Structure formats: structure tokens, C-alpha cells
């Protein structure tokens, strides 16, 4: 008999509605798996009591016929989302034992829809990283293994991707500033969607780079992703950058029909040194789309190579401003000093990790007097050119298809010598953040070592429906049903 944790979100929802099992049973099964999966370090704070309380309320609502659309479904929450009464740290020491007195808009919408919170998930400190190794709680281990080595689950949403791949949660919330939803999804055989900038409210999410940050789901398949997004999206008066446009029914957009869809292949994404397996997977994706009735179009995004350099000016600049709030005064950890300045310096020296310090200092430098125009304004101009590339491309095609990452998951500890090597992980994902466009990663195959690889689709603004429909065509063709062996389980 298959276990309740094997069920997808849609299957869990349908089973709960038919009363095949209770939310208590479903939640209990996931709590058990969460406890048995501690070796992965995906969860930084387990909230089993709160989960069971929420499950009880869900069961009551289901009994009364008042179930919400996600009623009774247990999910995990990235530790970047503020959760009322539940410690939220962004996995940074500087937040200490910070316990919000409010709930982020995205998570409150999910609870409103009936979802159950299992706990807070690990991430790179302040979402700065591509391997989930910069967390104060230590690295997350990918459920997928090769050659007996521990691999990273991607980042920054590595706790979210590992938790979904290990079936700890039915789904998870995540955030994406340069690829932090899509790259971890690709590394773990999950689906991850970064919505259009402004589709989900950023209110109550710990800020990294405010003009790039977007919340989105990581889930087991495209349908589950559509269902999660439905209840995360929407306008919020508390976030002036959230867009007031209706949220369409994402699940019903999954018609399976992509006949006539024009799929653009950006020629600049064929980067030097791309592994042949990635190249082959991309070609396979093109064939799948063709077989499903799509038309393949060659397009050019000429400024692609400048996206990462522009990102590594803009994101640190915004981060240096956003992280100025961590002053040891109002919340979080504090290290005393003889003067106010000494207190700030000691608090921030002890509270931030090295990657965060690097980015704050880069940001401070590019915004400082004399350098602002040469670096920051220049990067914003390049950002315009990158956005314009997409506008031009979408005159010829409806969506763009590319690999999600330039490699499969790499071993823990392998990319530490040079921060730039780590940054290159985001080469295919970062353009969508700069242009504010929605993008999704779908598992499409395994490499020679048996590790999952993802394909990415990038759509025009607010075309998440189209993106999900096209992604499902890849999912259907790929028939990706590989699962990691459950080496990490501790069943004592």
C-alpha cells in the first residue's frame, strides 16, 4: 500500500474531500516523515503541535462542508516568510530568535485557503546563495545522491526543494531573486515557478533585493504548482508593487493543448562549456514541444551575457539598503559596544555571514559617491536592454525554452573557493528576474549519474497560465517519475 506522503497535492485534496482519510492522518504522516528526515536538515523549525491544531480545524471544516480549496494540506514555509508567533530568521544569526507579531500576506492567504503549516524550511542566509550552504543552520543535503557523495539541493530555497523531493511537505513556499526557486527545483526533480514581479505580495517576506524578489511555489508536479500559485497570488494593498489584476484559474488552464504555441529558442543560451547532457536535454525538450504541436522559433536575446554582471550590481545594491535595518536596536541579536557605532559594527560583524557581508560591501561600494553612475545607473540601463530583448523576442514567440541550470546538483563544499563560480549557477535564470517575467522549471530527465535536470520556460508578464500549460506538455512528454532512494530515513 502506498503511504499518504506519496500523494500529490491534487490527490491529497481529492482524498480529503472524499473523506478517504482525515487531515489529521495526512498531517501526522508528514510530521512522521519530517522527523525521520532530519538528516537532510531541510527543516529549521518543526511546528508539529501547530500543524495538528490546524489539521483539527481543517477536519472540522471538512465535516461541516466548509472546506477551503487547500483545506487540510500540510506544507512547509521557507524561513524568509514571517509567520506570526513562529520564529523567523531568514537563516541569519542577526535575526536571533525574532518572532514576528504578524503574518506575511502570502502565507496568510495559504492558511486562509486551509493549508496546514508543518514548519519553517532552511535557505541560504537572506536568500543569498545557490547551494543552501550559507545558512546559519548549516547546509541542506539533497535527497538525490551520486557516487555516495552528499549533494547540495540548490539555493536559496534549498530547504523547500529538499522538503518537497523528500515528501516532507506536499508543497512548499519559496522565493526567487535570481533563480532561487527554479535552480533548487531543477536540482531535486521538482517543479518551481517564479511568478511575474508583482503577482504575489512581498509583504512580510524578509527583503533581499526588492525590485527582483518574488514568492512562488515548489511542488511535485505542474498541477500542484498551479494549485499552490492560485492561493499565493493576488493584489495586496500593503505591497505597493503588487499588481491589481485578476488572478485567473491556473488549474483550469492546464488543457494539455499547446498546438500552435510558438516556442522561442534563445540562441545566446548556448553558453561555452555547457555539458553535452544539458545540450541534449534541451534538444529533447524542443522535440517534445514539436511533437505536441508547437512551432519552434529561433530567437535572439543579444544582451544575455550582461545579465549576471548587471544582477551582481543591482541585487547587492538593493541588499545593502535593505539590510541596513539590522542594527541590533529593534529586533534580532545584538552585540554590545561602548558607543552606538561600536554596537552596530559588532552586531553586524557577528550577525552576518561572509557571503552576506560581501554583498553588502559590493552594494555599498557601487552606491557610494563617485561610483553610483558608473556601476548602479549603468546596470539599470543594461537591465532596460535585457527587458527590451524579451519584448522583441515575444513579437516572434509566445514562450521561451532553455535549460534551467548549466549543471546538475554538485557536491556539498565544492564551490567555495571562488564566489563567482557559484554565481554562474544563475546564468539561465537571472534574466527573468531582471525583466520581471514569470518562469518555471520542470524536471525533464536524469543525467548519466542519475541526477535530475530541469528545463525552463519563460513567459511574457502575467502569462503564468500559458507557462503552466506549456510546462505540463514537457512534463507529460518527459514522463519524469524518478525518485531518490530514501537513504536518509531514520525509522528508529
Amino acid at each position, binding site marked *: 500500500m502506498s503511504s499518504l506522503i506519496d500523494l500529490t497535492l491534487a490527490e491529497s485534496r481529492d482524498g480529503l474531500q472524499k473523506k478517504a482519510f482525515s487531515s489529521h492522518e495526512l498531517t501526522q504522516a508528514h510530521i512522521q516523515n519530517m522527523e525521520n528526515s532530519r538528516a537532510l536538515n531541510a527543516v529549521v523549525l518543526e511546528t508539529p503541535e501547530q500543524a495538528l491544531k490546524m489539521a483539527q480545524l481543517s477536519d472540522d471544516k471538512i465535516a461541516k462542508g466548509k472546506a477551503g480549496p487547500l483545506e487540510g494540506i500540510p506544507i512547509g514555509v521557507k524561513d524568509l516568510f514571517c509567520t506570526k508567533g513562529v520564529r523567523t530568521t531568514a537563516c541569519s544569526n542577526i535575526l*536571533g530568535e525574532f*518572532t514576528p*507579531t504578524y503574518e506575511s500576506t502570502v502565507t496568510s492567504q495559504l492558511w486562509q485557503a486551509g493549508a496546514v503549516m508543518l514548519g519553517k524550511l532552511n535557505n541560504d542566509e537572506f536568500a543569498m546563495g545557490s547551494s543552501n550552504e550559507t545558512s546559519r543552520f548549516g547546509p541542506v543535503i539533497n535527497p538525490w545522491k551520486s557516487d555516495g557523495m552528499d549533494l547540495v539541493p540548490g539555493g536559496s530555497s534549498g530547504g523547500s526543494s529538499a522538503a518537497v523531493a523528500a515528501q516532507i511537505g506536499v508543497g512548499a513556499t519559496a522565493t526567487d531573486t535570481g533563480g532561487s526557486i527554479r535552480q533548487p527545483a531543477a536540482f531535486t526533480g521538482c517543479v518551481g515557478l517564479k511568478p*511575474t*514581479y*508583482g503577482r504575489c505580495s512581498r509583504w512580510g517576506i524578509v527583503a533581499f533585493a526588492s*525590485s*527582483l524578489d518574488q514568492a512562488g511555489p515548489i511542488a511535485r508536479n505542474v498541477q500542484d504548482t498551479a494549485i499552490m500559485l492560485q492561493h499565493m497570488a493576488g493584489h495586496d*494593498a500593503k505591497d*505597493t508593487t503588487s*499588481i*491589481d489584476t485578476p488572478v485567473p484559474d491556473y488549474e483550469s488552464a492546464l488543457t494539455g493543448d499547446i498546438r500552435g504555441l510558438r516556442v522561442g529558442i534563445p540562441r545566446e543560451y548556448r553558453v561555452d562549456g555547457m555539458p553535452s547532457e544539458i545540450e541534449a536535454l534541451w534538444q529533447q525538450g524542443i522535440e517534445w514541444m514539436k511533437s505536441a504541436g508547437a512551432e519552434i522559433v529561433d530567437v535572439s536575446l543579444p*544582451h544575455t551575457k*550582461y545579465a*549576471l*554582471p*548587471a544582477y*551582481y550590481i543591482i541585487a547587492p545594491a538593493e541588499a*545593502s539598503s535593505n539590510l541596513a535595518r539590522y*542594527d*541590533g*536596536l*529593534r*529586533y534580532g*541579536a*545584538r552585540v554590545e*559596544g561602548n*558607543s*552606538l*557605532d*561600536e*554596537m*552596530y*559594527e*559588532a552586531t*553586524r*560583524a557577528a550577525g*552576518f555571514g561572509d557571503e552576506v*557581508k*560581501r554583498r*553588502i*560591501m*559590493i552594494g*555599498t*561600494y557601487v552606491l*557610494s559617491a563617485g561610483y553610483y553612475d558608473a556601476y548602479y*545607473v*549603468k*546596470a*539599470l*540601463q*543594461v*537591465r*532596460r536592454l535585457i*527587458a527590451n530583448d524579451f519584448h522583441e523576442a515575444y513579437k516572434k514567440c509566445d514562450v521561451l525554452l532553455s535549460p534551467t541550470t548549466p549543471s546538475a546538483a554538485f557536491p556539498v563544499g565544492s564551490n567555495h573557493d571562488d*564566489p*563567482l563560480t557559484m554565481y554562474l549557477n544563475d546564468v539561465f535564470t537571472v534574466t527573468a*528576474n*531582471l525583466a*520581471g517575467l514569470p518562469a518555471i522549471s520542470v524536471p525533464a530527465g536524469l543525467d548519466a549519474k542519475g541526477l535530475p535536470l530541469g528545463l525552463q520556460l519563460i513567459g511574457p508578464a502575467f502569462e503564468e497560465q500559458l507557462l503552466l500549460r506549456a510546462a505540463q506538455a514537457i512534463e507529460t512528454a518527459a514522463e519524469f517519475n524518478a525518485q531518490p532512494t530514501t537513504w536518509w530515513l531514520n525509522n528508529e
Partner: protein
Amino acid sequence: MSVDEATVRRIANLARIGLREDEVAGFSRELSQILGFVEQLDELDTSGVTPLTSAVETVIKRREDGVTDGGIREQILANAPLEDDGYFAVPKVVE
């Protein structure tokens, strides 16, 4: 562009991040590497290009200029590392 050690100290001071002497050389090397990488942008002629500050073209909604929140001093102080009589407490700034 190389970021020398004096510059690292100056930036760290602006960012209010205390650095140990033995950290300065490492940051100097890494920040130089990163800035070297981003300087690829100099290859591009961007004269006349309007900087993009908002990814999605939109008009920010206006709202009533009214009080919507407040009266939550206890909540605001709930996470304070040091609190005194309803205020955030800081090291003495005036002798």
C-alpha cells in the same frame, strides 16, 4: 578595478560592519574579483538608455491618506534586544 585594503576598510565602515584585520585581505581579493566581473558592462554603449527601475510597467495605486495601523507599541517592542520603559534602549550617545 581592484579594491585595495584601505577601500575595504572604508566600505566596511560605511556599511557598519566591523572587520578583523585578518579578514581584510580576503575581502579585498574577493571584492576585486566580483567588481572585475561586473565591469564587463563597460563593453556596452548605454548612452541614451533610460535606466529601468521597475520591471513591470504599472501605475502605483493611490490610497486614502489615512491612519490604518497603530497603537501596537507592545508588538513593536516585543522583539527588542533591550527595552526600557516603552522605548528601545541604546548605548549612551550624549555624555
